[in-house]
């Protein structure tokens, strides 16, 4: 095939892609035309009180296919569940003395950067949404930020944890997911408290914006706690074999390992550690280890493996807890959220933290609009800056850059096929199993079971 033919092919593929994106129907409860009409009213009279508004439009380039489809499905379910609660239980958002419902417009971004930017453009200019929710992952979130800034639209981030997003000087981005640098702090604190003799830590992670930021925080915190980093290496996205890296890691003989990046490489990491018989006292993998699919794929080899999580079923956030710490409470209880989520996705699916953080973002936006008594971007952004509250997801507060500083993460561990919250002590649903069983023991069927 010569260059001319190749160029032609690329042109045709690009043209087909644009046509397909253009032909997508918004997956919203209401017809697109209605949504536009409501938004046009606001756009035509920006200084007028939003009393005439009949709905508030939330736009979302959701990852419903492609590599982040799993997280995207959870996020959409979480948003729908929270919308259900706001519109039907809470009665809508109080705006200009009236209750106004939220409406959700989302398109599949296919986990692709190019689609994220074009879809945000469409949501801003054609659908005229009042707020855009970010797609999943730091890379995609960062990609969309310049478009929302250019269109002067609030951009709420529930899927991009990298601190780098908030170092670019963006004005309209506000985070609900916790910052990446805090991911492994709990794990390190737990090991320090459980095993003061453990000194050597290995860091092995995906060469991605998110994982690099997680490890930046882990490196700093590990040094602060007196751990020695005996190995640190990255691996590329889409890696299909980690054997060379893991062989080198094994030679460094660490006490425990902090690693991972996303779902796929996390499974591979654990599997190939088992293949090579690399035994350490603890293994904590970001993103992958907290998902049920992780255990389903690895079965007993996942026993004892840990992972940081923004939310897990069983966390003890409640209206009473909020009162105790002097925070405003909003939203469904944990069990109510699970029921709403199942109703939203239409199947017996358990929500994970991707769903919870997306839902919490809806609650944050609701409170901010009420506080600002407006849907205009500047007052709502200012209200979000001053907002602190607690929901089933936990605490919520942002700093001046919009980065989340009020939410505390938990560490979960696979114990006897169940996810158990093992850190911090006040959130524990079980004691940590430390050291975790060796891979040889796990191959014989040994489970990680804590002696209480």
């Amino acid at each position, binding site marked *: *095939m010569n260059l001319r*033919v190749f160029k*032609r*092919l690329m042109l*045709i*593929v690009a043209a087909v892609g644009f046509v397909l994106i253009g032909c997508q129907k918004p997956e919203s409860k209401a017809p697109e035309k209605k949504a536009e009409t409501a938004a046009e009213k606001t756009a035509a009279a920006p200084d007028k009180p939003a009393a005439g508004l009949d709905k508030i439009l939330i736009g979302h380039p959701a990852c419903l*296919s*492609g*590599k982040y*489809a*799993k997280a995207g*499905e959870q996020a959409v379910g979480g948003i729908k569940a929270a919308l259900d609660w706001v519109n039907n239980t809470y009665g809508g958002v109080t705006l200009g003395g009236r209750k106004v419902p939220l409406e959700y417009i989302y398109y599949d971004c296919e986990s692709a950067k190019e689609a994220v930017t074009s879809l945000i453009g469409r949501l801003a200019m054609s659908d005229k949404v009042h707020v855009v929710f970010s797609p999943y992952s730091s890379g995609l979130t960062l990609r969309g930020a310049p478009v929302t800034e250019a269109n002067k639209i609030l951009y709420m981030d529930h899927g991009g944890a990298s601190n780098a997003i908030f170092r670019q000087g963006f004005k309209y981005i506000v985070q609900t997911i916790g910052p990446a640098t805090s991911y492994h702090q709990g794990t390190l604190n737990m090991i320090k408290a459980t095993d003061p003799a453990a000194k050597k830590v290995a860091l092995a992670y995906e*060469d991605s914006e998110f994982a690099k930021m997680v490890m930046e925080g882990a490196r700093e915190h590990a040094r602060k706690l007196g751990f020695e980093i005996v190995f640190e*290496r*990255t*691996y*590329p996205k*889409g*890696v*299909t*074999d980690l*054997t*060379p*890296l893991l*062989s*080198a890691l094994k*030679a460094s003989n660490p006490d425990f390992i902090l690693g991972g990046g996303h*779902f*796929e*490489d996390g*499974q*591979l990491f*654990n*599997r*190939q550690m088992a*293949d*090579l*018989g690399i035994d350490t006292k603890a293994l904590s993998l970001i993103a*992958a280890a907290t998902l049920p*699919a992780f255990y*389903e*794929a*690895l*079965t*007993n*080899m996942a026993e004892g493996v840990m992972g940081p999580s923004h939310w897990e079923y069983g966390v003890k956030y409640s209206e009473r807890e909020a009162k105790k710490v002097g925070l405003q409470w909003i939203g469904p209880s944990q069990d109510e959220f699970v029921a709403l989520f199942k109703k939203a996705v239409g199947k017996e699916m358990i929500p994970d933290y991707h769903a919870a953080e997306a839902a919490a973002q809806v609650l944050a936006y609701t409170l901010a609009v009420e506080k600002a008594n407006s849907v205009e971007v500047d007052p709502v952004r200012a209200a979000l800056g001053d907002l602190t509250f607690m929901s089933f997801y936990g605490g919520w507060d942002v700093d001046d850059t919009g980065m989340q500083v009020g939410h505390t993460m938990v560490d979960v561990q696979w114990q006897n096929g169940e996810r158990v919250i093992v850190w911090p002590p006040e959130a524990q649903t079980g004691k940590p199993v430390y050291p975790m069983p060796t891979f040889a023991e796990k*191959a014989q069927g040994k489970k990680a079971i804590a002696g209480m």
Partner: protein
Amino acid sequence: MVVEQMAGNLIQGLVLGAVYGMATMGLSLIFGVLKVVNVGHGAFIMVGAFIALLLFNTLGINPVLAVPLAFLFGLGLGLLFYYSVMQRLIKAPELATLLATFSLGLLLQEVVKLLFGSEYRGYNWAVGKIDLGITVLPMSKLYACAGSALIAVLLYLWFNKTRAGSAMRSVVEDSEGARVCGVNVGAAYALSFSLGIGLTVASGVLLTMFIPVGINPYMGGHYTLKAFVIAVLGGLASPYGAFFGGLVFGLLENGSYTLFALIPGVEPFALTRFFSFLMLLIILLIRPTGLLSEKRT
């Protein structure tokens, strides 16, 4: 220590390379006979991976037995796609076949996603390990390597020792000449396409024996790029060349890691890819037709 690591990585690279080679043979076969570049190649690998997963998790059938079953399924799928789509496009410009195979790949991905969802899945087939001192090799990887080598030998024998294989080689040399000599060229095309797809689907099973996790409707993309590199390395139209190309690629990828790890401040994994592609460029400069290009099918 470095020598041990290097030796261990080369052994792992050789085993992985055999599976990479097997995963590329179907691509080379289809291009060799039909002059069609199957850009949906990775999706067929993914189908094989799902066959292994489903047979193991639902019926308890071990992946070794899943290889022939996946091959037969792939043959059927190949015939279906050939007669429904590819047959009409054989004489069409390259763009038409490229778009057709691209579309077939997308179709397969979305059908699998619809049926099984988009979770990353896996299975746990524990059949022991061999500790070589310098590295540990799970038996499942050795079975995958041996299976790949066996299939490569069988394909070679089939091409060189059977009438159908000779007919196919004659079509590669000169399709008009073959037709004049009584060869059913249409049937040879159909057989080549379905055989190529069968081999690719079977290679998906073998890949899961090497890496039994990360099975997902979109997993094929990683392997498509590698398969193209390996195919070019071995000689695009030569299935055996592809097999040896896979071995070379596996050795380069894993072996170079240890060397680059010796350079302070360098991330070796980033450089192994660069090195593999650099070697590809050098080989193509010296032998533009690939390593084993003279051995036509």
